């Protein structure tokens, strides 16, 4: 449930353990990560303001959106940002990440844009995104500025990890995130990731570094090829509003938990999880009590050696004692029936030798019927 994510981030880190880290991952088929991210930020911030969470401040490291986006977002959700200077700070890596404006200003007396000043009470511009250790120091400084030193913790939201990976190699980003997680004053940390933009290894690295992975999947997988275009189109339309929210928790005791939620807009409605067992997990034990599909088909195809198969037709079973002439006549009859049922039969055969010719074929009568119990 989205509730459990919120609870995990709110409860934060225990003494001596790494802070919980959440990756919000999406793909082109279901591109709702930003909405989820905004939802998580606003929920966490309101709990910080209410004092219900372990962390006392929030640092937003914003690469892909302007700081005013976040301030407006929080204002729309009803939280009063102007008076909450002490609870939120934004590290602005969006306006001038590589320090070009400074260089331009220096060389041509270019006046900087004035709208930066409007948000300066909450946002600080950071100009050296290529240096992850400087970014680390700035984040920690900003956080300490919010909550002071000592034991008080703060949370970090990174929007987005993709942009960080554009500027710095994976190992530096990984080092930054793991050092942040192991810092004493960090309560929780979460980031956004668009999985289509990266190689599989990079996504695997970020999932390795996080303790909760929330991935957004389309609620209906689009089929390739066979389906007509009309069907695909309606699925795409459907996917543009709804998606599956799939969360994986890495618990402390080593058990992992999976949750599926259907999501439309930003309301999370719980969906019964399919609980598909991962066949790879179950080791090969000596005997299996389930039949595979092929085994089931074969089982259905076996002709049992009862003369009465229960389907209303009498059946003749080849019985070793009849003469060849008779059996030849009978063969076509039984062969026809057999062919119908045994088309896919493998090599299994049941051969039944009749005890004597006097034996009556199996009948429906129950010999116990005349018992009076």
């Amino acid at each position, binding site marked *: 449930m989205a509730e459990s994510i919120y609870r995990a981030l709110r409860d934060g880190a225990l003494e001596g353990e790494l802070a919980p880290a959440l990756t919000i991952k999406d793909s082109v088929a279901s591109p709702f990560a930003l909405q989820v991210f905004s939802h998580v930020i606003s929920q966490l911030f309101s709990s910080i303001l209410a004092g219900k969470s372990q962390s006392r401040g929030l640092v937003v490291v914003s690469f892909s959106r302007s700081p005013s986006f976040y301030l407006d977002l929080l204002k729309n959700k009803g939280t009063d940002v102007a008076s909450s200077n002490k609870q939120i700070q934004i590290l602005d890596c969006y306006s001038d990440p590589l320090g070009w404006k400074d260089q331009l200003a220096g060389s041509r007396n270019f006046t900087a844009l004035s709208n930066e000043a409007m948000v300066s009470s909450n946002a600080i511009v950071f100009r050296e995104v290529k240096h992850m250790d400087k970014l680390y120091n700035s984040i920690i400084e900003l956080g300490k500025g919010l909550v002071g030193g000592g034991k008080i913790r703060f949370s970090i939201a990174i929007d987005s990890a993709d942009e960080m990976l554009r500027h710095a190699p994976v190992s530096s980003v990984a080092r930054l995130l793991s050092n942040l997680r192991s810092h004493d004053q960090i309560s929780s940390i979460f980031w956004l990731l668009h999985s289509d933009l990266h190689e599989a290894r990079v996504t695997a690295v970020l999932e390795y570094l996080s303790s909760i992975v929330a991935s957004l999947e389309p609620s209906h997988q689009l089929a390739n090829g066979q389906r007509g275009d009309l069907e695909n189109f309606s699925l795409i339309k459907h996917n543009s509003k709804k998606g599956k929210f799939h969360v994986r928790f890495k618990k402390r005791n080593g*058990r992992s938990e999976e949750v599926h939620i259907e999501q439309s807009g930003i309301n999370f409605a719980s969906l019964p999880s399919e609980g598909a067992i991962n066949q790879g997990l179950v080791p090969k034990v000596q005997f299996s009590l389930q039949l595979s599909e092929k085994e089931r088909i074969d089982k259905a195809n076996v002709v049992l050696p009862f003369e009465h198969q229960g389907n209303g037709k009498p059946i003749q079973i080849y019985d070793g004692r009849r003469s060849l002439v008779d059996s030849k006549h009978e063969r076509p009859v039984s062969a026809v029936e057999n062919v119908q049922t045994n088309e896919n039969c493998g090599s299994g055969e049941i051969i039944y030798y009749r005890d004597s010719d006097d034996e009556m074929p199996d009948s429906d009568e129950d010999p116990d019927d005349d018992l009076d119990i």
Partner: protein
Amino acid sequence: MAAAKTRTSTFSRNLSTAPPSHGPGLKCGPNGTVFLSSGIPDLDKILGGGFPLGSLVMVMEDAEAPHHMLLLRNFMAQGLVLGQHLLYSSPARDPRGFLGTLPSPAASKDDKSRERDPDQEKGLRIAWQYKKYFGENQLDGQRDGKHEYSNEFDLRKPLERHFINGPRIDCVSIQDSDLSTLRDRCATFLSQFPRNDGSISCAGRIAIQSFCAPQCAYSNMEWDMLSFIRSLKSMVRSSNSVAIVTFPPSLLSPSFCKRWQHMADTLLSVKAIQDEDKELAQLLTGYQDMVGFLNVHKVARINTQVPVILEATTFSIKLQKRRYLVLECLNQAPVDGSSGTSYGTSGGCSSSSKTGNLDF
């Protein structure tokens, strides 16, 4: 009367050379190998005695679960308790912090069971006359011997400070250092335990945690990491020590993952368990207590070409009373759902201490 025969057969063993006596924590095994304990008694039994000196153990982690840390903790604590030297390296900035989480040896449960025995004996004297043949002395010898070689660790009790602060521990952080520094540190550490014929005074243990973790600067240099592992393996083989390297296979490319697995003398892997997996719960007994799975892929065989074929390669990791790590064979659930027996207590009349067991 013929002279009293000292030999029962015409073949007699030539015991002119006494077997070399080894330091604490070492046990002689077949084919001239010497074992040291992994810190988990069940794992020692599965592997046929322990980790042979000179072998490289690799553990494949599961990114979802920290079970490899359990294996490492027991391994390191066992070495410290027995006075063996330890080199620990991890991708954290301060690896010493991990030493604080090492477990302490469990208080001997045998004392408690000893007190119970006389009372039980009186009641069962008629039925169980053969108890005298089991011999308290035999159990004694076994128990003391066991404690010199391996201990059960109580994961809830931290190891005493004096073990951790001793001079026998060296820690390296691999986050900032590069592979050649790490290789030099390993080489200097291993030079303390050269292998020569004769008795071994002390053994060394190397524990490298999460070797290809993404924080390390060299983590994308796959060939360099592979050549490090190869040189580590050769250094370890010519010294009296055992090295454990854990790594998350999901962060390596598949071909390198295979190469690393081939490098190992003993290959283990740990896997997480899904919580609330109803199908798995129906399939296996004792699902609720399981923390994870341990797979044994390869067992080291030094000085012999005969491979070890295990009865079972997958074991469930359980924490008994939340303190003691036990490994159990997986049992499919019979109709009544009784739980399986620990690998350590094999069959016989000793039943495992779990409730709901059928006693025949």
